[in-house]
């Protein structure tokens, strides 16, 4: 096209923006349809269910307004599960991030056997939860387990059977499992930092710690934000690990390891009170969304310039 001069640039600029919007929505059309039909619509269904007395196998499902929410919010077990869930997150997320970051940095240092070590640290993440949970129960076994023996040396009782410890004993399993995940994420993040930055900074005279503080950490920000937000979502939705660690008594002795999703599962699928289970899910969803948005805002604002 033989168009030239400032006029052409304006026209191209305008049409460029429109074109970009058009291509954006073209790219998004199928995914948006998917998320709306397969995720949002069923979730909205849960909202509707939460306003009904909805026995899962029942035939009549009368509208009950906010009765399910009242019932859930006045249930001691719900609050216990909520408090537990926060404890899992408070203990597990920092541990997972710190250990994952340390392992990733160490792996970057290792030149020889790097692949071998990377595979080793990835192993927990591929171990099926059912198998892992059984082995961990052995390790905590009050009479035979090495971890229980260590706890005993420290003057602590059998971790899984002690209300004050059981939750953290399961947290350890979850951190162990997600360590491999976290390492891969951090490694990908570290690899994505262009070497040129290090080279440039090195030429400017920056050394070890300075490089780490001024290049690695800021440039890893997107990875960190992702890790924090995603770990929060994982920990606030813990379920499978908890269920498998205390199979005969889901939620552990006296409900000390129960989580919100376990509460939802028991209420909905074991006891068939789907209306209340849906109400608890709506509460969980609102809390999660709030926390995630807060994290995104705070974390992104602080380091993104």
């Amino acid at each position, binding site marked *: 096209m033989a168009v030239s001069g400032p006029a052409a640039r304006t026209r191209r600029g305008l049409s460029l923006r429109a074109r970009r919007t058009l291509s954006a929505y073209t790219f998004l059309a199928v995914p948006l349809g998917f998320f709306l039909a397969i995720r949002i619509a069923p979730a909205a269904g849960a909202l509707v269910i939460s306003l009904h007395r909805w026995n899962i196998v029942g035939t009549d499902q009368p509208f009950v307004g906010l009765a399910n929410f009242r019932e859930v919010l006045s249930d001691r077990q719900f609050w216990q599960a909520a408090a537990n869930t926060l404890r899992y997150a408070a203990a597990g997320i920092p541990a997972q991030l710190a250990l994952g970051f340390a392992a990733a940095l160490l792996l970057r240092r290792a030149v020889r056997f790097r692949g071998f070590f990377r595979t080793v640290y990835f192993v927990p993440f591929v171990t099926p939860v059912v198998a892992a949970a059984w082995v961990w129960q052995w390790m905590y076994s009050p009479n035979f387990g090495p971890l229980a023996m260590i706890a005993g040396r420290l003057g602590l009782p059998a971790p899984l059977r002690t209300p004050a410890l059981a939750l953290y004993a399961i947290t350890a399993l979850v951190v162990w499992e997600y360590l491999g995940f976290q390492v891969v994420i951090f490694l990908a993040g570290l690899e994505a930092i262009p070497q040129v930055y290090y080279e440039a900074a090195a030429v400017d005279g920056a050394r070890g710690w300075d490089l780490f503080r001024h290049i690695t950490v800021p440039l890893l920000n997107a990875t960190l934000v992702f890790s924090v937000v995603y770990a929060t979502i994982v920990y606030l939705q813990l379920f499978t690990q908890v269920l498998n660690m205390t199979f005969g*008594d889901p939620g552990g002795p006296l409900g000390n390891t129960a989580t919100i999703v376990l509460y939802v599962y028991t209420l909905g699928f074991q006891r068939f009170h789907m209306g209340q289970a849906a109400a608890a899910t709506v509460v969980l969803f609102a809390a999660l969304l709030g926390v995630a948005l807060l994290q995104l805002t705070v974390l992104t604002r602080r380091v993104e310039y």
Partner: protein
Amino acid sequence: MRIAWRACLVAILAVVLGASVVAQGQPRVTITYWQYYFESKVKTMDTLIAQFEAKTPGVHVVQETFPYDSYNQKVASAIPAGQGPDVVNLYYGWLPLYVGSGYLQALPAQVFPTAGIEREFVPMIKAAKFDGRYWALPTAVRTLALFYNKELFSRAGLSRPPVTWDEFRADAQKLTQRDAGGRITVEGFGIAPNGQDHQLLREILFRQWGTAAYSADNRRVTYNNPQGAAALAWYTDLVTKDKVGVIDFFPGGNGYRDAFNAGKAGMIVDGSFAIGAIQSGAKFPWGVALLPRRTAGGAPSNFGSFWVNGISRKATGPRLTAAVAFLKYLTSPDVQRTWLRQVGEIPASQALAADPKLAQDPVYGPFIASLPYAHATFFVDETAQRTIMLDAINEVVLNHKDPKAALDDAAAKEQKVLDDFWSKQAHK
């Protein structure tokens, strides 16, 4: 040529018409049957279905099976979509939930008269009765008994299994082995509140200590009294004072049985459904005995349970007829005999269970002898009620709560569960 052509046409027409008449005379009905996966059950059911189909032309039964641990969830999830089986295998303790919500149909009284059922089947099946009608029936039933390790017994100088609970405790103490640090290496009693012990407490210890767990109409909790507290204290003392067992000694949902099979528990209380697992797992001489009693001459008691087959509301018209016929077949004496032979479960019919040969069997005998006094708890919400009982035990064992206070708490919570259920029933 022409005539031949016409004749041919007529012949074809006749064949087609004839075939369709035959097909209409015997419409082919397909019904679906669901049970959880257990190899011998699935295989036995396959042969039973083949026999049933041979006897009932025109009916085709499809069996579908799912993992045991998630079976209830699988059934429940299929229902809101209008999917799922015509005939379904359910744990009896879930029945009130399924019946109360209208998922199951009552069994037609012409085929399954109430009086006939109660004459024919062992008494515990009354737990499947609801609103004066039966909603499902079992092929087989189970009770509890004491499994004991004969090798550990003789090493401890014990010649026979205990008859009273006092003897049981004394034996358990003798059977318990400890290492130098005082840690238990062999349990005298493989204690497992989340195994069968919560049932043991509810239907056996409470009764023998002088209190029923619930009122006769199943609407009130009645164990929160001194007798109930004494029974709970006796049980929890096994862990806290006598120290003859450790909760979660072995990992996994059935660790107590694994411990027994590994020769690390002298005795366990387990159901007849465990016979097969112990037969293949335990590589030492072992025996089965009646559950002990409070005193040698005291009243025995037992916990009975069973899986039932019921007809879902999905089965209508010809499918309902076929489902009823299939259920009739599954509860027939012939099938019960096959089931005993191939799956190893005790027949639900009184007459079959009374077979002297069976009663004298060293393994099956104690389970069968317990049938007349086995109570199947009427659970309105099995998950919740089970958790409440486990919590009561754990409150005492872990938090050193007074047994009476623990039971008062449990009773208040369980009463609420019962009230919730019955008030919803009243609304209908």
